[in-house]
């Protein structure tokens, strides 16, 4: 029967040569190469659960009075968006499971991407000829952050509403164009017109998922075109790649990983509560709650906003650069700018313009590892600063001194870490037998 199917497909679509190559495509087999797949499978769960949610969610700012099952909101005026999310949580069977799984999948999606980017960075996988793969990947990371932000903001609960106010402030703070940009996106003054809500919905359920999906396909196509990198080993050289064949070796492992990701996400989605919007209540412009936070992957932005000293750049009584610009716009631009520029920076500084199919172990390249560690120190410090109120409440560390501490670590920490890590790894490298430098020149 298999023979008949294969013959049929080959005569109708000519797939046999492609299928043969695909089945025996070589997958270098290190466990750290699976992190990108964890992200990809999280994305699949996002799309699947997301489709379910779109069948029940009512976007938009039309108002209604809630008379549903959840008594503490009975008689409260709220948007249809919020009401339908509450109904999804309580009235739709398995609705809360899918809502929570979808949200956990978004959080885990970005965790996996970050782990994957760390692996790619610290092993030098972004080097020639794979710079394009890397750029597409960083672009996907940016889109994933935006997609997540839009997703939880659609529900119009108190926490995400406050988050949108801050997003609006960051848009407004961009010099020259900020005022118009903020009013354009929000269809007027915050909290925005009806057009803002429908555009946000379409961006989240159609435009961004398609963009991420297309970029993902491009990312994988580029990897296949140049083949995956590998660590040095027996039979593993710059010229020959070794590993498991796609079939029957790699396929069951990859599907096993997919099932494990789905298992983790559905388990979390059922057992650990996330974003209990019925407890937060609907968003109103005049209301706020203490301890409001964005989802974890935007924690660096709330940290940056809190760390900035309080000044607007002004001339006389005219404001030129409002305060949120530095933490909310410039800081992420610098971080992503660094990530995009890194392959070029490394190439210029090391003068290494060779092809690399072999990966470095992090300790093989003390300079790059030290730079990466220093960079992460700064970003992590800003992240933790975002939770400084929580640290105060849980551990009693006073808030004001904490802000100064995180500023010091974010600005000065990288230098300390850079020198310490480089020193340490250089020592380690000297003690080990140094392998021949990798890479080769084409032609």
């Amino acid at each position, binding site marked *: 029967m298999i023979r008949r199917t294969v013959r049929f497909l080959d005569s109708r679509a000519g797939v046999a040569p492609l299928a043969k190559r695909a089945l025996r495509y070589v997958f270098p087999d290190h466990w750290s190469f699976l992190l990108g797949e964890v992200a990809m499978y999280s994305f699949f769960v996002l799309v699947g659960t997301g489709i379910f949610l779109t069948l029940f969610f009512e976007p938009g700012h039309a108002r209604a009075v809630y008379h549903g099952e959840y008594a503490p909101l009975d008689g409260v005026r709220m948007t249809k968006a919020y009401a339908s999310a509450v109904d999804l949580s309580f009235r739709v069977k398995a609705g809360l499971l899918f809502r929570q799984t979808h949200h956990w999948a978004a959080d885990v999606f970005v965790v996996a991407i970050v782990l994957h980017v760390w692996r790619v960075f610290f092993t030098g996988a972004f080097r020639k000829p794979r710079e394009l793969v890397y750029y597409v990947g960083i672009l996907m990371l940016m889109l994933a952050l935006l997609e997540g932000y839009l997703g939880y903001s659609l529900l119009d609960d108190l926490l995400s509403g406050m988050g949108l106010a801050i997003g609006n402030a960051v848009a407004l703070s961009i010099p020259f164009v900020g005022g118009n940009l903020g009013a354009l996106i929000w269809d007027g003054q915050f909290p925005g017109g009806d057009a803002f809500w429908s555009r946000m919905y379409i961006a989240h359920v159609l435009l961004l998922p398609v963009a991420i999906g297309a970029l993902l396909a491009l990312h994988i196509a580029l990897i296949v075109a140049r083949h995956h990198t590998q660590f040095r080993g027996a039979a593993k050289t710059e010229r020959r790649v070794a590993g498991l064949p796609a079939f029957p070796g790699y396929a069951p492992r990859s599907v096993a990983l997919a099932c494990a990701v789905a298992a983790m996400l559905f388990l979390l989605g059922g057992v650990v509560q996330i974003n209990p919007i019925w407890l937060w209540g609907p968003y109103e412009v005049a209301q706020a709650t203490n301890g409001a936070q964005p989802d*974890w992957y935007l924690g660096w932005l709330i940290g940056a906003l809190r760390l900035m000293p309080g000044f607007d750049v002004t001339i006389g009584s005219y404001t030129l650069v409002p305060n949120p610009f530095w933490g909310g716009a410039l800081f992420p631009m610098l971080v992503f700018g660094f990530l995009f520029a890194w392959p070029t920076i490394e190439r210029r500084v090391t003068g290494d313009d060779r092809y690399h199919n072999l990966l470095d172990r992090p300790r093989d390249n003390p300079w790059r590892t030290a730079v990466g560690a220093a960079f992460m120190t700064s970003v992590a410090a800003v992240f933790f600063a975002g939770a400084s109120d929580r640290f105060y409440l849980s551990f009693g560390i006073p808030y004001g001194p904490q802000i100064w501490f995180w500023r010091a670590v974010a600005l000065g920490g990288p230098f300390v870490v850079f020198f310490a890590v480089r020193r340490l790894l250089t020592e380690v490298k000297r003690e080990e037998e140094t392998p021949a430098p990798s890479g080769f020149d084409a032609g």
Partner: protein
Amino acid sequence: MRALRLLLALVLALVAPAAAGAADGTSRGRGLFFSGCAECHGADLTGVQADPSRRGADGKVPAGPPLLGVGELAADFYLRTGYMPLDDPEEQPRRSKPSYSERDLRAVVRFVASFGGPRTPQVDLARGRTSAGLKLFVENCAGCHQVVGAGGYLTGAEAVPLDQATARQIAQAVRIGPYVMPRFSERQISDRELDSLVRYVLYTQDPRDSGGWSLEHLGPVSEGIVAWLVAGAALLLVARAIGERIR
């Protein structure tokens, strides 16, 4: 006859002060107040101005507001929550076990109340509606105490979590405005509205957590920790189980 009269006088002399004390019921309270509270609030309840030259052996300078006219409302609130007695006037009062036995506590409260002032409002939970309480709480309280009463930071102080507050204490705090909390009078939050507000706060102590483990309702910070330390760690382990290592 004369001896009998003397004896009667003696008995009366002994019993009278106690009888007088029992009649106005504050002598026990007065004694406790003087030993436990007067150092900061003044023996005459008119308060004590901070005077660095009067720094105690423990390094703390006694200071405290006047208590004339604070009434049973404040006395009962502060003593039952353990906010008072306060060790260090410079520190924010913290909830703790009451320092007094029930009997002593009532005595001190009676003493302070004898100088006049408001009583604890009567809370009738049946009259209140949780949804009305939610609206009131988000408007007036969530900014400091967090929308489900988990507490929060405000510059220079802490808005305490409300998980241990009783109905009486919630009503008392609203009417007092303790420490740096605003005070909400009957004109702003009527007694009826207060019933709803108390109902809501009590609800937040055990809210509907249909989604599973609530992570203490702290929101995205704890969710992020779970995403990294549970999901991230587990999936890393799965990846290691599936893939090879460098030999």
